[in-house]
């Protein structure tokens, strides 16, 4: 195991973590603002991939597919929140079960619309090359994944910290009642955040589509991983999602490379350990 091996593994782990960040950031935001455990989040990821494929088949443009799919699913998320989740008020159990119901509906609908074949989203040729840096083959697509995650992460952080909208959201997260007291429309905030979460998940699905593929069952495969990230990083914390994604990406990668028999363990063991020490996650708050 020489230096090259370690560097490549770190690189792979970080790129996987980048994809996880896209998936988990939406989940943690939704949880932070609305205290909803969105079990349909994996479905958003998968649907994002499917819609992107349809866009590519219709227009041939991968570049167009990215925002188109993300926006389409954001709309789906918006509708789900407004029409179904809102009327329930604050009832975490019912909301969870509702999202599960939708997850089943989405899965069947996806099967009926796009069929069951294992599909891949082919990125433009420019991204399929590899940069050779000091003897290391670095696939450009992975670099792209890392770049996108960093850009989005920074964008979200800036929006949260530096803009008025961000301040409003932070107020709603910290103390919803007080926020309402000062005139903030928390229901608008919820709607926006839910749509944003769906947007991010779908974007992850499009980007992940080249990497993981698009096929029935992917929704329930990525969901527990997203949860692992959110639980470890801290529910409701964006920074936590970033830290958690990185940790899970690296732990998963190194776990599989060094101890292949314990593949799933290297994912869930740290989760249990952290839950034992700090139930709200590394950077979460009560």
């Amino acid at each position, binding site marked *: 195991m020489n230096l090259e091996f370690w560097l490549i593994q770190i690189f792979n782990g970080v790129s996987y973590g980048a994809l996880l960040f896209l998936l988990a950031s939406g989940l943690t935001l939704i*949880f932070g603002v609305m*205290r909803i*455990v969105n*079990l349909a989040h994996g479905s958003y990821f998968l649907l994002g991939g499917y819609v992107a494929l349809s866009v590519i088949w219709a227009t041939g443009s991968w570049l167009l597919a990215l925002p188109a799919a993300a926006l389409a699913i954001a709309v789906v998320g918006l509708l789900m929140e407004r029409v*179904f989740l809102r*009327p*329930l008020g604050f009832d*975490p*159990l*019912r909301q*969870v*079960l*509702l999202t*599960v*119901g*939708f*997850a*089943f*509906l989405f*899965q*069947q*609908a996806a099967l009926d619309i796009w069929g069951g074949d294992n599909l891949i989203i082919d990125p433009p040729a420019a991204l399929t090359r590899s940069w050779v840096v000091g003897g290391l083959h670095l696939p450009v697509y992975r670099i792209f994944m890392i770049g996108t995650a960093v850009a989005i992460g920074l964008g979200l952080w800036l929006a949260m910290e530096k803009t008025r909208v961000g301040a409003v959201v932070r107020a709603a997260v910290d103390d919803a009642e007080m926020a309402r007291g000062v005139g903030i429309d928390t229901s608008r905030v919820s709607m926006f955040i839910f749509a944003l979460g769906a947007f991010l998940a779908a974007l992850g699905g499009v980007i992940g589509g080249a990497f993981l593929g698009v096929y029935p069952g992917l929704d*329930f495969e990525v*969901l*527990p991983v997203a*949860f*692992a990230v*959110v*639980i470890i990083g801290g*529910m409701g914390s964006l920074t936590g999602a970033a830290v958690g994604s990185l940790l899970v990406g690296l732990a998963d990668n190194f776990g599989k490379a060094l101890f292949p*028999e*314990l*593949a*799933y*363990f290297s*994912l*869930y*063991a740290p*989760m*249990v350990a952290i*839950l*034992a020490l700090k*139930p*709200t996650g590394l950077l979460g708050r009560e």
Partner: protein
Amino acid sequence: MKAKVIAVIVAIIALGAIAPFAGSYVLVLMTQALVLGIIAMSVDLLLGYTGLPSLGQAAYLGMGAYLTAILASTYGFGLGGGFWVVVVLGMLAGAAAAAVFGLFAVRAGGVYFLMITLALGMCVWGLAYRWNSLTGGDNGINMPGRPEFGISLSDDLNYFYLVLFFFVLSLGALYVLVRSPFGRSLVGIREREVRMRILGYNTWLHKYLAFVIAGAFGGLAGVLWAHLTGIVSPGDVILTTSVDVLLMVVLGGPGTLVGGAIGAGVVTFLREYLATVVPWWQYVLGAVYVLTILYLPGGLMGIPARIRRRKNAT
């Protein structure tokens, strides 16, 4: 109260009476609904009475099921009179797992409890899936056949009556439990935990015990489940199983015990029977989830009350 008890007893007797005449496949489904009814009722203890929504109960079913399967296939134990020992062991296994997991889970409440139980359930699934030498991994473990101790359980009708027996036992035990002072304090905790603590109750201990008891019944359901299907695989402990069980309680009516059993019947029918009749059964299942959550907060058992309220309102 009395009327309800009588109604339940009549229903159980009716079930036992129809069984010999039911179609062969329907009998299997009825047995399955009863096994799931046991674990659903245990979830109701947690959810309906203590206010703890657990998304990981399949783990305890898994403990009971895998224990049964490993004992039967590797050690040949539990296929004669030993079956009753395995039942006890299965319940202990479920309780033990819940005792360990409860240390992580019970300190949290509400949504955090949900997330943690989900995570713990996933851990058990991961173990079942990867620990090939113990669990057979993806292939699962085939049961060598149903036990025989005087009566042969290979006869589906006999097995049905056995399961019905355990169901009635579980229902009775849980019923006594929820009406006892312990049970009433659980309800108190669900309603106003802070007040209970002020009154001097050790609320953590109460919740923890409820969690362990639910685990024990999950283990029992697991033992019966292993013998029902004849195979135990990681598919039995996936997230969907835990979610289905939770839905059964919500659908039937939380806080009613029997509601869980009714919910089990409905969900089993949807998954196993409807699936053989129409290809779009998943839409129906999803719709049932959504509509129940939106419009039936008290579940099916709550319908008579709602009708009464409507009548009184007019």
